[in-house]
């Protein structure tokens, strides 16, 4: 209790004075610029009666579908992700070392890919036609839940592994069943991580266009694309995008408020991680099957369908070149995002209003459908181009080289602005585990702010940072609209190749590039999973007791 009281005054002080936050703030503002451009387009674009028309006709059904799809996705991904993470972190069962990283793989399957495959499998006359057809808002919500649960899984697993076993054991001692103790002690402590994962799940589901159109679940993002494609009004599309962003913003403002109320740092000042329990018998196999289920539904069955179709189709070439391009873009974006996410997490921790505003603004880019985000990027780039042209002309007599079509700069900018949330979330969640009292203790012992970051924080948050990089890596592998429109000439990626075929209803030809996409995502995932697992096994990661939990 005494320790707990001691920590209280430190809590509300801005941590780490002296670590500069301005680079992160600048970065976040730059990332948020395309969203500002979209807002500008919404406000200053031509006003027509389209919004009135849509309000009178379909707005309500868009909003309802959006709520159903987002809610169901969050529910499925939250439950699936958290339970899988708990099983992996606390139990040993057949296949668990394989599932530990395998469970993250469905992230590599674009939601629209899974949607096409499941619809193809379960529609009337399909091989699984005896099942209810996967369609409508419920089908779409489930598809998002199963393809996006790894966000929750990855963040929650990280937390459960590092979580002290004290609370869980106390709950068990007080008579809770293992399930009850999980529900009442372990889960609430992982709430920041689960919330950060769910934030990504919901934003991505709401911003999706391909899957919801195919499954017949028109959400707001469909309404937005109709304003653009049918009515030909980009400003109205931007307005509906803002509505979408506002909904997301409200959900997360609410979540953050809840989270702030229940602070989950460990007052004991030390952690005593659990030793995993080895399960035996039918129980072990049951847990194996349970954990493998999401993987089968989200990845193996859809890929199997693609593969089966591919066998019956003549396939094509250029895959190696596309794979190289995908890997280069995703790798670069992942590295930059990891660094940016870390910096932004510190900026958020400083609680400086400008820093918090900038980081939250940058994070909102994720809630905007990719195509609209791409328009925001184009507006910014063309503005910058005009400025540079003028400046360059004065000095050299010729205009500045084109920003678009002249390399991957525009693409990386677009990715960072769109996926800033995925970059910031894991680092922020990891940093939230670093108690303020740790800072205080280190500073009292004479450590400089940078020392604190390097020696105390980094070992605790490095996996979160690497996770940021990984999430952005995988997102960029799958990303479509921005890549399609901002890429240099004659530049293919795997996602574009797969999408071109799938959108033309050629599933068989889309299969091979999709397979390659998943294989590419595998490489960093295996590496990262191994790094993480190895670190958890080092002596410093384990606490003194070495007791086996029962």
């Amino acid at each position, binding site marked *: 209790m005494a320790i707990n009281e001691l920590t209280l005054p430190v809590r509300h002080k801005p941590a780490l004075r002296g670590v500069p936050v301005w680079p992160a703030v600048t970065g976040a503002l730059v990332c948020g610029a395309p969203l500002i451009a979209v807002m500008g387009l919404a406000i200053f674009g031509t006003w027509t009666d389209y919004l009135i028309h849509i309000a009178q*006709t*379909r707005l309500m059904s868009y909003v309802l579908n959006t709520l159903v799809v987002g809610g169901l996705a969050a529910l499925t991904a939250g439950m699936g992700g958290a339970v899988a993470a708990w099983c992996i972190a606390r139990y040993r069962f057949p296949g668990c070392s394989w599932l530990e990283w395998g469970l993250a793989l469905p992230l590599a399957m674009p939601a629209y890919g899974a949607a096409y495959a499941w*619809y*193809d499998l379960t*529609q*009337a*006359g399909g091989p699984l036609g005896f099942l209810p057809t996967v*369609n*409508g808002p419920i089908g779409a919500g489930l598809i998002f839940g199963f393809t996006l649960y790894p966000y929750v899984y990855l963040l929650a697993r990280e937390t459960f592994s590092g979580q002290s076993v004290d609370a869980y054991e106390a709950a068990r001692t007080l008579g809770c069943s293992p399930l009850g103790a999980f529900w009442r002690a372990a889960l609430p402590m992982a709430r920041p991580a689960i919330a950060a994962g769910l934030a990504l799940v919901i934003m991505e589901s709401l911003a999706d266009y391909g899957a919801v*159109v*195919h*499954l*017949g679940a*028109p959400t707001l993002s*469909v309404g937005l694309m*109709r304003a*653009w*494609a*049918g*009515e*030909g009004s980009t400003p109205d599309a931007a307005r509906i995008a803002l509505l979408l962003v506002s909904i997301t913003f409200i959900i997360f403002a609410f979540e953050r408020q809840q989270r702030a109320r229940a602070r989950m740092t460990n007052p004991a000042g030390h952690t005593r991680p659990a030793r995993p329990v080895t399960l035996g018998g039918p129980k072990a196999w049951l847990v194996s099957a349970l954990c493998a289920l999401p993987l089968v539904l989200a990845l193996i069955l859809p890929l199997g369908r693609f593969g089966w179709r591919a066998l*019956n*189709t003549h396939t*094509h070439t250029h895959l190696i070149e596309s794979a190289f391009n995908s890997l280069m873009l995703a790798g670069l974006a992942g*590295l*930059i995002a990891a*660094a940016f996410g870390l910096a932004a997490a510190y900026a958020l921790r400083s609680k400086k209003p400008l820093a918090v505003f900038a980081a939250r603004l940058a994070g909102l880019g994720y809630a905007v459908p990719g*195509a609209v985000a*791409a*328009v925001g990027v*184009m*507006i910014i780039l*063309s503005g910058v181009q005009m400025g540079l042209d003028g400046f360059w002309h004065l000095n050299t007599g*010729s205009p500045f*080289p*084109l920003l*678009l*079509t*002249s*390399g*991957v*700069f525009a693409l*990386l900018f677009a990715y960072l602005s769109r996926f800033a949330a995925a970059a910031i979330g894991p680092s922020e969640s990891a940093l939230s585990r670093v108690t303020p009292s740790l800072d205080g203790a280190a500073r009292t012992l004479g450590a400089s702010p940078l020392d604190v*970051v390097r020696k105390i924080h*980094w070992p605790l948050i490095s996996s979160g*940072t*690497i996770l940021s990089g990984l999430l952005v890596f995988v997102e960029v592998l799958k990303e479509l*609209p921005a890549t*399609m*429109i901002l*890429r*240099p*000439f004659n*530049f293919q990626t795997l996602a*574009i190749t797969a999408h*071109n*075929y799938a959108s033309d*209803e*050629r599933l068989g030809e889309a299969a091979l590039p999709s397979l390659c996409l998943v294989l590419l995502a595998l490489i960093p995932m295996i590496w990262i999973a191994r*790094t993480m697992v190895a670190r958890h096994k080092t002596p410093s990661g384990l606490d003194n007791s070495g007791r086996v939990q029962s």
Partner: protein
Amino acid sequence: MSLPRLLTSTTLACGLIAILTACAPRSDQEVGEAVVNVYSARHYSSDAQVYAAFTEETGIQINLVEANGDLLIERVKQDGLRSPADVVITVDAGRLYRAEQAGLFQASDLNGALDQVPATLKHPEGKWFGFATRARVIAYSAERIDPSELHGYEDLADPKYRGRVCMRSSDNVYNQSLLAAMVEKQGEEAAEAWANGVVHNFARPPQGGDSDQISAIAAGQCDLALVNHYYYLRMARSNDGDVKAQADAVTLFFPTSETEHTHVNVSGAGLAAGAPHREAAEIFLQYLLSDKSQRAFAELTNEFPVIETVQYDNPSLAQIADFESEPINVNALGENAGTAQRIFDRVGWP
């Protein structure tokens, strides 16, 4: 990975970007060189073949960006005067209309080659033209529908087919263009009555693509649907026995009566207003109308050539090619696209 190593790799990455940016080709310096920059919303294997043959025959290199039509238009707009685009290609007349309205095209008669294209399939002032057409037709169950009872698109709205019609979402541009053509021909009110009738005949909420509607008919979920002809032909020519069997259970009906003809849309191209390589671009556009290209579109993507005299080796396509298309200029599809979409919204066709 330690913090210093992470920082080092990030710095290296940033350096790499700088190099990549610096080394990338600068389109400005290519003016006058034999190159044409193509923005295309198509991504068919026939195109790759046509482009390769073009480069081989003319020595002109093609720089290609493929993306969705709306995004392409937005990009050319944002690029403004500095746009490197020479040619913009889309798969729908509505998009070509919109690009033209935004001032993105310039007129050209392609040294007379444009005269070969029927008047209904090109912009009245020659700012863009169709180089291949696709018909949107009725697919019906060969088993459950008597073709002698079919007359035209109005059948889809006939109350006797209640609960027997499968449709794709009205987000789909092909549906929009079909309704836009009806607005042009019969007026907004009649078009709305038709759409309303179709909605009442839905066998299920709109979902899936064109091929999925064909599969649904084959599986007995419904009896009638609207599809683009080439999806059907692709299924009918498939090596996959199951897919072929689905197509075999379905037949296409091309509306051809005194009052109504088959609705066609175009894959079309236009010369960009600020084309930096105008001459090469015109040669390229002409090439799209050459015998070789027209043949490739017919044989590889099952599209109808716009030049009727072109001979091609595709018996399945030739078999259905004999139909009369609606004698309205496809430009009208763009003019009425907004009206069509609002009708869909009002009648509740998702």
